[in-house]
């Protein structure tokens, strides 16, 4: 009897696990099918590449956000981190630094800003929501101070920097390639390495993780640094695409990133989540934006639809 019960529970668990894995994917396929039926242009290779390039900015931020949310935290500062690191990168390129070095500096800057978040949360014992809410306005303010409120443009940056956001390699937009590489690297870190296992352990039960000898402060600080670095990476793509670092860039991007993570089935309570889900979540949001534009639906309705999709995703997640 006992054994039978556990078998049933296990079966149920397995089914819900399968559902968790496949739910977002099925939603994406259904969504793409609907948009295709309503406008055939959607499925054309050119538009799909266009869609992937649009998605890459949000996807990169959302990848970093996935790590943070798995630890049970949140990072509201990503949009401001994006803006500040972009502005600084544009600034050093304008000062004559070669773009490859400037790109590296921009990424390190993002990681550093993220690390500050991590230290605030671990050493300062500030709740992630409050800590990153504060740095969100601090980083945005510093961006405005640095740029004096004006976009930085005409910094050139040479072929390498232009290629970053606007290039095509064998017909594929370079941002899509960056996103693919970043996804592969982060997937290995999260799902195949001990660092990833520690990340999950902290989110599942921080006390237990501590007793098990995991240096949770160090892991968490690194997780926020990853999030900052991914925000900076996505900012560099944006800056290159726009050929301009905007002081208001990335405003409210944290919300799209969190939405992608949640739609992808990662639990806001921490301890559970998948990077593949986040990728699918970002694709769902991107398909909605692109598809609703293609269908000529007013942007006011687009916002309503996006919110409804998030609610449906969370409700489905609860139901199982």
């Amino acid at each position, binding site marked *: 009897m006992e054994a039978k019960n556990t078998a049933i529970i296990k079966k149920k668990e397995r089914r819900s696990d399968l559902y968790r894995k496949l739910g977002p994917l099925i939603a994406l396929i259904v969504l793409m099918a609907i948009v295709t039926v309503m406008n055939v242009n959607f499925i054309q290779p050119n538009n799909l590449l*266009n869609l992937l390039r649009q998605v890459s900015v949000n996807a990169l931020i959302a990848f970093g956000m996935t790590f943070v949310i798995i630890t049970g935290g949140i990072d509201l500062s990503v949009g401001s981190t994006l803006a500040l690191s972009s502005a600084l990168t544009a600034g050093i390129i304008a000062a004559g630094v070669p773009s*490859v070095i400037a790109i590296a500096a921009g990424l390190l800057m993002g990681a550093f800003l993220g690390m500050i978040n991590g230290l605030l949360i671990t050493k300062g014992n500030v709740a992630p929501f409050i800590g990153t809410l504060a740095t969100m306005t601090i980083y945005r303010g510093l961006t405005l101070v640095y740029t004096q409120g004006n976009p930085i443009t005409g910094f050139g940056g040479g072929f390498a920097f232009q290629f970053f956001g606007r290039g095509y390699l064998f017909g594929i937009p370079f941002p899509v390639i960056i996103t693919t590489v970043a996804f592969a690297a982060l997937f290995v870190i999260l799902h195949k390495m001990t660092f990833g296992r520690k990340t999950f352990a902290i989110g599942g039960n921080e006390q237990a993780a501590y007793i098990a000898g995991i240096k949770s402060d160090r892991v968490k600080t690194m997780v926020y640094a990853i999030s900052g670095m991914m925000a900076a990476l996505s900012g560099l793509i944006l800056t290159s695409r726009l050929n301009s670092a905007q002081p208001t860039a990335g405003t409210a991007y944290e919300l799209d990133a969190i939405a992608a993570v949640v739609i992808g089935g990662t639990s806001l309570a921490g301890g559970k989540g998948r990077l593949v889900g986040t990728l699918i979540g970002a694709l769902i949001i991107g398909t909605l934006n692109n598809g609703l534009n293609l269908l000529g639906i007013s942007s006011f309705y687009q916002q309503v639809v996006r919110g409804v999709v998030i609610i449906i995703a969370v409700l489905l997640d609860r139901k199982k």
Partner: protein
Amino acid sequence: MKKVLGLVSVLFMFVLSACGAATLEGDQAADNGEVEEKTPEEITIGLSISTLNNPFFGDLQRGVVEAAEGSGSTVRSVDAQDDTATQINGIDDLIQQGVDILLINPVDSDAITPAIEAANSAGIPVITLDRSSEGGDVLTFIASDNVEGGEMAAEFIIDLVGEDASVVQLEGVPGASATNERGEGFRNVADERLNVLESQSANFNRSEGLTVMENILQSYSDIDAVFAQNDEMALGALESLEAAGMTDVIVVGFDGNDDALDEIEAGRLDATIAQQPNEMGRIAVDTVYEYFAGGAVEDEIAAPLELITAE
């Protein structure tokens, strides 16, 4: 070491681009031959608006949509929500749909350039509305004639209080094109025929209009008229004049926003130089039809302004 790394990666890019594997967006030249003539019914217009949260741009969109759909054209519009990246994505989506022409009201004149280059390489003509673009090929740029508006304001003041009257000018954000052009128009007339006591910036902002006007009133007690380069500053100045008991001073604003129109109705504000976004949209659509009928299009087109007074 870093230099070597940079050099290697640049070389790598160079080799790739030489093979044609690595290309930049907007690299391909457009096959920009003859304009294919089209009737209004055959034309699909792609419209990208900077933000629909501002009534001015909402009116601009309505102007385009009403004029175009009235003639049987199709309009596909996207809203950039004041975000440059959203705007570029929206324009990409319009290009994917194969619209015949793009009407773009840029969020930012610099950051719009890549989107216009993308449209160029797709062979889609572009018209910019209200704000210009720094780069890319644009068919024409349609905006209100701010210089003429500044002149209209000065003429109106002369009509009411006569030549050599003492006036104060409240300027907008320093360096903004609207500030420069409205100021230029005002000076064209005022330098010769009015006595400009003071010209100071209040950043297009209502509360700054109030404080700057208060400060000016400390040094000048005999003022006949105030020209504010937008309605917000005019409304601010109005408050400080009223507090000082100087209700007979003529105040002229610019833009024609709803608050200003209400104040004119109430007899407090004397006039505003109203922009007509609706009309701007209609002119844009007419220009599109002219273009597709094979007609010539000027590089810049001025949308008319209207002097609105209590009468």
